[in-house]
């Protein structure tokens, strides 16, 4: 299974590795699921964590390397970005939809705006939907 994951999923997992989000990341380390995220989400995390939790540059680098996620560059999902930004204004949120559309997989997020959005054939799911599937 391939999924595009939002920053809030990373945060939930890191907060509690025994949570559903944590288990999803563990599954990714075992290559039972393929997780992708976007350059936009990465930038968002690199902005939030130093500002709110005092992460240093080295700590950020270590964290990003430890997450079992493939970070996709903007060029990969660029063609869908303009259309996605018309649906959800926030660029990081739009990047999730654009990326999932290009890869042909679902988005997992806890963000209400993204959950309520309709974009091409992209399914946006909550983590709990995924665990009950």
């Amino acid at each position, binding site marked *: 299974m*391939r999924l595009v994951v939002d*920053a*809030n999923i990373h*945060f*939930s*997992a*890191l*907060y*509690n*590795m025994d949570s559903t989000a*944590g288990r999803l*990341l*563990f599954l990714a*380390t*075992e290559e039972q699921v*393929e997780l*992708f995220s976007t350059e936009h989400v990465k930038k968002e995390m690199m902005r*939030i964590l130093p500002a*709110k*939790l*005092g*992460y240093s540059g080295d*700590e950020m680098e*270590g*964290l990003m*390397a*430890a*997450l*079992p996620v*493939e970070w*996709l560059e903007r*060029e*990969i999902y*660029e*063609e869908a970005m303009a259309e996605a930004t018309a649906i959800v204004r926030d660029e990081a949120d739009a990047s999730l939809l654009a990326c999932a*559309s*290009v*890869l*042909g997989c679902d988005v997992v997020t*806890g*963000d209400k705006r993204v959950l309520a959005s309709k974009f*091409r054939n992209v399914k946006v799911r909550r983590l709990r939907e995924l665990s009950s599937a």
Partner: protein
Amino acid sequence: MGFSGAKYIDPYIYRIMKMVKATSISVTETTRNELVLLKVKEGYSSMEALLKHLIVRHKKQRLLEESDRFRQRMLKRRMALKDLVE
């Protein structure tokens, strides 16, 4: 759905391409012997299976370390997850 960049390789295809190409690594004899011993003792079917397992263990350990740091910072600042994403 289409791709605008000609250089793009689907990550799934890329992974398959990497999997089918076997290669060798250079280690000291001591390390080699330790790996062979570990493989036999733990009952792994191949060196590939042992190394794969060690890699997964390492990745999980790293995640736990990062989770520990993250949680400590959150607790120290008395923050909830919602404070991060606002």
